[in-house]
């Protein structure tokens, strides 16, 4: 926070009120400031855009496109070859390893014999996006013979009688297009006592690397002790031991300090490709330095001893160890000390630093004034804006929780900072992310998920007005409102009945149409059933007709003839089976009475239905139910005849119809449901 200087309020209010106001003011400005501070550090570590590409930050762009005019594709190769030659021209520096011996207590008897040590450099690169595993390259750099179990006093220190290996350092620094993670020195010791087993060990890629490097001069490194020997194997003739030394750590610092090393080796099971028999986790254990007894640990494990230093050949001076890549501490970045060449044109070009004064306004009163600064660094994110226009633009766009007003000052500029009341801090991304379940699921990278299609504008080059400082003079911003550039469906829609959000994969199909719902159908059937003055047959026909019309959604009077014919096609046989012929005829007559269909339609439909009756199976059914009806009504009729003289007028009823040849339809005096059985 820029230095708080003085409170330039000169009003005579009670002190406590002033204090309270001041507290409120501090609190109000604190939250956005904290947010912007946090964003500052996050953008330094993982930036989302580059400041120099913004149109108002031309001052930061140090590249120019001048070279594009004279560029030719052929010169690319020349550039690379020149670079590599320059590397080779440097005075060669070497990593010198002098092997003093291979110690293994299990090989007591073979003292004085010779083992062969082969050294490899394994280059581990960073995995590129489309590769399935991190690339590994292994290069052999030399083979030496070392003594097995040499006694003390023999060949210590220098290069005496012992094997010496020099590795030029350019092996460790050339990257050849890959982003190198680290280099590892792998030593393979094979016992050559027996001639037929002296074959070269198979070059295997090792999954587990456990090595211990002990610098006898520096005992502050924690040790990982391993039980390298498997229970059932024993060192013997024809076996191979291997050990690894990692050269560079995570930050690119070289781990191999000059000194004497004892490298613990692990037995590899001969020529078979079986790697570690036991899992590293089982065997590895942390031990603290105090409790470690160095003698005890190394007693049973085969050890390769050597001396290592960095030299240029034939001289004793030690030169700088190579670095894998330069370090970039956070402070360096934050200090923004990168030099930029000033661009001559544009308002955004770097200017001579002027006086910039920040005045914090709260409740329409000026609360704080800061010290004048002589640079154009943003107080919240320490960004060097190089010019006043750029600074104001940056403040207005990147720190939208505040409003900034520019007031020209004789010596420079005064910027009034106030809280932006109209700031919309709501989530600006895909609203599906907020309702995804389980929480946070939308942001996970656990595999492809379908998302609502939205369109985000990535690059936009609208016509911009000439940059001038006048746009900051007033408070209201009319033309420069940050327009949301997301087009398309960026809203969260919900289902009608369940109010659950519509998932992206459900967007294809519109399921919200209320056409012919199940509940409406059920409800009409229930309501029709509730009629008390309509007989069963009528109710049944009403239900069938209503369902038919609701299904096809006939809305016009002109569609009724079509509705009738479709009804007969789909429900004709059912009508006859349920003995609803007369009911249907009545229905036709009613439709005609209301003027919905003409007589021709009535005639055609009845004819159609009668044709259906010709079907022998239908006839059988009809005949059976007609017989039944006759029998039951005859009984009732006869009982009636005996009791009263007045004729009971026939209530609406249904009847069967015999074949077309029979004339007349019998009338029954009582209604009886003929369809129930």
């Amino acid at each position, binding site marked *: 926070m820029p230095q708080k200087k003085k409170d330039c309020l000169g009003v005579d209010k009670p002190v406590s009120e002033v204090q309270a106001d001041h507290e409120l003011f501090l609190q109000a400005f604190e939250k956005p400031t904290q947010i912007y501070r946090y964003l500052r550090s996050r953008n330094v570590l993982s930036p989302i855009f580059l400041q120099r590409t913004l149109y108002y930050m031309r001052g930061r762009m140090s590249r120019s496109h001048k070279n594009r005019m004279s560029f030719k594709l052929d010169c690319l190769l020349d550039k690379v070859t020149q670079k590599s030659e320059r590397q080779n021209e440097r005075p060669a520096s070497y990593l010198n390893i002098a092997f003093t011996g291979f110690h293994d207590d299990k090989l007591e008897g073979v003292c004085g014999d010779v083992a062969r040590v082969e050294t490899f450099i394994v280059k581990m690169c960073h995995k590129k996006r489309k590769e399935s595993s991190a690339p590994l390259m292994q290069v052999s750099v030399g083979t030496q013979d070392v003594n097995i179990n040499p006694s003390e006093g023999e060949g210590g220190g220098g290069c005496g009688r012992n094997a010496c290996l020099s590795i030029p350092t350019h092996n460790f620094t050339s990257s050849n297009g890959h982003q190198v993670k680290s280099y590892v020195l792998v030593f393979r010791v094979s016992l050559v006592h027996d001639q037929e087993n002296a074959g070269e060990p198979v070059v295997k890629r090792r999954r587990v690397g456990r090595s211990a490097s002990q610098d006898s001069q520096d005992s502050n490194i924690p040790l990982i002790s391993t039980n390298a020997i498997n229970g059932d194997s024993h060192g013997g003739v024809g076996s191979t031991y291997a050990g690894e030394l990692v050269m560079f750590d995570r930050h690119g610092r070289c781990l191999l300090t000059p000194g004497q090393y004892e490298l613990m080796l692990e037995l590899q099971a001969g020529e078979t490709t079986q790697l570690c028999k036991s899992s590293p986790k089982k065997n590895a254990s942390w031990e603290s330095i105090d409790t470690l007894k160095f003698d005890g640990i190394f007693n049973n494990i085969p050890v390769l001893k050597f001396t290592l230093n960095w030299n240029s050949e034939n001289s004793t001076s030690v030169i700088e160890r190579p670095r894998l890549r330069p370090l970039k501490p956070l402070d360096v970045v934050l200090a923004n000390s990168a030099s930029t060449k000033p661009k001559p044109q544009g308002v955004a070009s770097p200017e001579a630093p002027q006086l910039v004064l920040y005045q914090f306004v709260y409740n329409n009163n000026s609360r704080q004034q800061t010290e004048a600064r002589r640079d154009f660094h943003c107080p919240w994110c320490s960004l060097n804006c190089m010019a006043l226009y750029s600074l104001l633009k940056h403040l207005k766009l990147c720190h939208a929780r505040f409003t900034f007003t520019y007031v020209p000052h004789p010596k420079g500029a005064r910027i009034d900072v106030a809280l932006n009341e109209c700031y919309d801090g709501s989530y600006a991304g895909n609203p599906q992310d907020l*309702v995804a*379940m*389980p*929480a946070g699921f939308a942001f996970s990278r656990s595999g492809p*998920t*379908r998302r609502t299609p939205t369109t985000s504008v990535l690059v936009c080059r609208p016509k911009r007005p000439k940059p001038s400082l006048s746009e900051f003079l007033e408070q209201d911003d009319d033309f420069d409102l940050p327009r949301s550039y997301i087009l398309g469906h960026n809203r969260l829609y919900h*289902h009608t*009945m*369940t*109010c*659950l*959000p*519509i*998932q992206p*994969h*459900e967007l*294809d*199909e519109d*399921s919200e149409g209320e056409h012919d*719902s*199940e*509940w409406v159908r*059920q*409800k009409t059937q*229930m309501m029709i059933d509730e009629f008390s003055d309509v007989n069963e047959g009528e109710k049944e026909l009403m239900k069938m007709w209503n369902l038919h019309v609701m299904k096809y959604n006939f809305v016009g009077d002109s569609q009724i003839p079509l509705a009738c014919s479709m009804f007969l096609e789909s429900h004709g046989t059912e009508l006859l089976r349920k003995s609803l012929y007369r009911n249907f005829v009545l229905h036709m007559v009613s439709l005609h009475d209301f003027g919905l269909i003409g007589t021709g339609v009535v005639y055609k439909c009845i004819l159609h239905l009668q044709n259906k009756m010709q079907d022998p199976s239908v006839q059988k059914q009809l005949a059976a139910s007609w017989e039944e009806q006759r029998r039951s009504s005859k009984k009732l009729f006869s009982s009636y005849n005996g009791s009263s003289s007045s004729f009971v007028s026939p209530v609406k009823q249904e009847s069967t119809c015999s074949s077309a040849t029979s004339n007349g339809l019998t009338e029954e005096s009582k209604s009886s449901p003929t369809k129930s059985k």
Partner: protein
Amino acid sequence: MDDGSIKILQCYSDPDPEENFYTVAWSYDTETGRPILAAAGSRGVIRIFSLATMQCVKHFIGHGNAINELKFHPRDPNLLLSVSKDHALRMWNIRTDILVATFGGVEAHRDEVLSTDIDVEGTCIVSCGMDHSLKIWKLTTDIMLSTINQSYTFNPSRAVRPFPTVQQNFPDFSTRDIHRNYVDCVRWLGRFILSKSCENTIVCWKPGLLNQTELKHNDTNVTIIHKFDYKECEIWFMRFSLDYWQKVLAVGNQQGRTYVWDLDISDPAQARCSTLTHPKCVAPIRQTAFSRKGNILITVCDDATIWRWDRVAQQ
């Protein structure tokens, strides 16, 4: 606790300060066996807490208004029933995060649904509300059973259509003849139903005639078995509870008294009532709850006090 005191174990606070929790329900995660707690309230959001990790692991939105009660299915710990001020009931499968069914619509409740219960076998739901009605919904229909099954295997990312939630508009039984006011609490008692309104009575009744066993949709008969009377409980949203074995019934009134009935008798007319009082307990008792063995009763009051009553064995 065993020594007779009460100790707070965990406390959860909703990020929205406006939230008021009205109801909780216990269940367990069928995969891990760990207990989970479902809570819901005025915002209409159901939150599921995993007590082992002390986190809210799931939330369910969709109800249009406050949620008045939550109940878990007795046979399937993944099925959660929620009852809301938006006149509807919803059944959720909380393992697969699917809305299985909604019970609302043309013949469902016409006002806030206040309480619900699922019977011991998990075959029927009874619900009651501000429209004075009590409705019974069957869970054993073909469509319900098949939808519940389907909710376990439905894969949203592979499906073209949304899940076919059952829109149950028609209850299997409905009555408004038991109470004359808001019905704010209902529980199953075997095949009978206990329900109360703000008329100082808990009514034990059954749908249909006394000997009738099946539910009819438009049945207008109800048989009242017994009425448990008490005094001074004329405000609504006061709940009674039964113990796990349905042998004891307890309800509190607005003066801080608790009435307890022993139901383990053959003749309902002989149900004896005892009252529990304390001079400091004077605020309305909103809910009561029994421990699993039935020997501890907890009552909670409007003045944010919790009362523990232990059953003492009679000499």
